[in-house]
């Protein structure tokens, strides 16, 4: 056939298609579906001829009821978080004593024995090893508890009902009900929360969930909040109320995070994201007993270990950087001290200080090492006793001793409050940033997701600091 003929046929087909009209596609696909369902009806036999009377319907009636729906949800989330935070303490302290108190000195001695120069053992053992060990000790246990619990609820089929119950709230801010799940997952780990947004199949709502996941206070940040609340907030009220006050402060921060999540979801869906395609549907699958061991295994492998591995990959260079900036001198000052002093002015404006800002810059890889870094830098800059040497992160066993170091570093109640706020509102850790890039494949959204929370953090801490100073 000549090309002219083919062109003619293509032209003709286009013309005919135009004459048939737009309905053509729909009619075609509808009739295909209709035909398929007819075939299914005539050839597939079903056991349950009667109306659906399953135990599912009974459970559904309870978990989505007006009276019980929300209390059950809050109770379950509370229990999971409580088990994670309390339960992780024991394995965490065991790992810490093993990796930090036993192996670290052993490595140091080994390096001395082999006559390593001081800078090499410092760089490798005090820098790289210590950061990695710290991240493992603090990060592994909560994730190993949180993720399996969450996956069990998911496998049982309860989580889609949560999304169903919560959808109306999320719809108001332009988000998907399933964001309730990725948000809760973010309380465990933001990187895992970002991965979990795959369950949202609508492009716009998924981006919203990814960008706002960082407003969920993750496992790496809960300990910071609890520590600071215990030292500073607990101290302003009478002794008998101190634990209640510090607990409410921590919960208040988490709730504030949820508020910011809703606010930014709304703002994003009204501005930069409004052109993205948005769809909605939510399947409520039947309940089924979870396959316990398989769930534990897959959640450990799929979620915990992958996230942990990424964290280690990022923590190692961070440890190296922390050690280096403390041990390389420009003139009479180390780089770290020099940075701290130049950040002090901006830090003051935000009600923070140079140490906190530098700690948040170098500890981008993991929120877990923020407090050890702050302590190390404070001791170094103020020049008080204690600590383990320049560039060696440490934590103190007693809360009071930690408080004394921080107060020596010039901390006030305002500093503590603003560090708590900044811990909630700052850039995601590098593991999360990397995960966001992997999931969105877009530099633009990754940048927005990384910068948005920091800006929010700057604005909020700035406003709090100024108002605080006016009234005190």
């Amino acid at each position, binding site marked *: 056939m000549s090309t002219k003929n083919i062109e003619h046929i293509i032209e003709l087909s286009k013309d005919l298609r135009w004459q048939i009209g737009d309905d053509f596609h729909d009619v075609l696909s509808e009739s295909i579906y209709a035909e398929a369902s007819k075939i299914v009806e005539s050839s597939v036999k079903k056991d349950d001829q009667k109306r659906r009377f399953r135990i599912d319907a009974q459970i559904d009636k309870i978990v989505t009821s007006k009276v019980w729906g929300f209390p059950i949800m809050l109770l379950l989330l509370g229990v999971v978080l409580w088990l994670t935070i309390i339960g992780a303490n024991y394995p965490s302290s065991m790992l810490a004593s093993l990796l930090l108190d036993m192996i670290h000195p052993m490595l140091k001695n080994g390096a001395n024995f082999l006559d390593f120069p001081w800078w090499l053992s410092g760089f490798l053992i005090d820098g790289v090893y210590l950061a990695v060990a710290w991240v493992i000790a603090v990060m592994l246990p909560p994730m190993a508890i949180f993720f399996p619990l969450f996956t069990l609820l998911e496998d049982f089929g309860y989580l889609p009902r949560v999304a169903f119950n919560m959808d109306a*709230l999320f719809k108001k801010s332009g988000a998907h009900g399933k964001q309730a799940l990725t948000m809760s997952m973010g309380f465990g780990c933001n990187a895992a929360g970002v991965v979990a947004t795959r369950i949202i199949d609508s492009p716009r709502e998924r981006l919203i969930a990814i960008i706002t996941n960082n407003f969920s206070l993750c496992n790496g940040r809960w300990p910071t909040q609890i520590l600071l609340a215990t030292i500073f907030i607990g101290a302003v009220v009478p002794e008998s109320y101190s634990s209640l006050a510090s607990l409410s402060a921590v919960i208040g921060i988490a709730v504030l995070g949820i508020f910011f999540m809703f606010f930014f979801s709304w703002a994003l869906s009204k501005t930069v994201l409004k052109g993205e395609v948005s769809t909605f549907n*939510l399947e409520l699958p039947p309940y089924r007993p979870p396959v316990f061991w398989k769930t534990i295994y897959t959640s450990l492998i799929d979620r915990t270990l992958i996230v942990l591995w990424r964290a280690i990959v990022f923590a190692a260079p961070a440890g190296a950087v922390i050690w280096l900036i403390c041990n390389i001198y420009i003139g009479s000052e180390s780089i770290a001290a020099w940075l701290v002093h130049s950040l002090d002015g901006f830090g003051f404006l935000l009600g923070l200080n140079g140490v906190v800002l530098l700690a948040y810059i170098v500890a981008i890889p993991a929120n877990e090492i923020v407090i050890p870094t702050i302590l190390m830098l404070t001791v170094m800059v103020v020049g008080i006793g204690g600590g383990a040497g320049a560039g060696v992160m440490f934590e103190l066993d007693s809360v009071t001793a930690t408080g004394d170091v921080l107060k020596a570093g010039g901390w006030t109640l305002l500093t503590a409050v603003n560090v708590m706020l900044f811990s909630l509102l700052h850039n995601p850790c590098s593991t999360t940033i990397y995960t966001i890039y992997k999931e969105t494949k877009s530099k633009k959204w990754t940048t927005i997701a990384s910068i948005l929370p920091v800006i929010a953090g700057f604005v909020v801490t700035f*406003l709090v600091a*100024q108002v605080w100073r006016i009234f005190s």
Partner: protein
Amino acid sequence: MSTINPVVSLLVFFSLTILLYYVFRPTKGIYFLLKKNYKSKTKTIIEDILKLLYHNQVSNKNLTTNDLTDKLNYNNQLLIESISKMIENELIYMENDSFRLTELGNEYALQIVRAHRLWEKFLSEKTGFDKKEWHERAERKEHELSVDETNKLSELLGDPKYDPHGDPIPTKTGKVAPKKGVSLSELSVGAVGRIIHIEDEPEIIYKQILAEKIHLDSQIRVVENNRMRVVFHSEGEKFVLAPVVAGNITVLVLENQAVSEENIMRLSSLQENEVAKIIGLSKECRGENRRRLLDLGFVRGAIVEVDLRNPLKDPTAFLIKGTSIALRENQASKILIKKE
């Protein structure tokens, strides 16, 4: 440590915020105004004049210079300059004080109309922008699309015949499907018809129609029509409109034998313990949403019932093909059913 007065720093902060707001606020910000002015303005004016003339010629209305200055929101000086340029380039000519399009001008106008309607179609099918924004966005985009880009866009969309409001899209060769139907306000009581076009200009009236949740392609029956109001039934619901608003809805009157289905309802009005059969998806359910619903089994002939009501009212879970699927109210309202 340096001490900065908190009051001063707050003042600086708020003035910066206000400044940024005025520079970058959507559409009215200084940044956007500058960006808009920077683009070649005469092209936009010429194309807007052509479009206006085209629309008026279709409805057999004449336009004088005064009409142009009234209807187009541009500086008069610029308008006059553009008009003389257009006469020079043989796009328009004068006839008894009013402007007419030359053949060349008509072709050009059709290209702009084609770009506009194709872009609206694109927005409705491939993006998540709200209905209310389609028209305004297309108003801007029509001046940016070249003929080539327009043709590619048309191909991407499968050479559609109508835009999402029911207006015909001119073809590459300038063919335009004829407009059919009569205005809803002119129908007599008892008439049955199908909505084939919802006019998106002026915006105030279009927003009222949208707020009423009137859907394109739905079947209606007029039950009252006088100078005060037009009342009609459609898809199991009753709608009351002012005649001005009804005038912007075009209906194709159906002869008695052509009346396909009566008693059609929207899935959103299905009650618990009722069973219904799906008649189809409304035209208003578009793009990705439409395909998703079809994939889930919301197709003609499928049996559907309410599975679960939500403690917060929305969404509702429907049992379809043995699966429980939750849909939001605005989606369920675009699925048409008939009770069994």
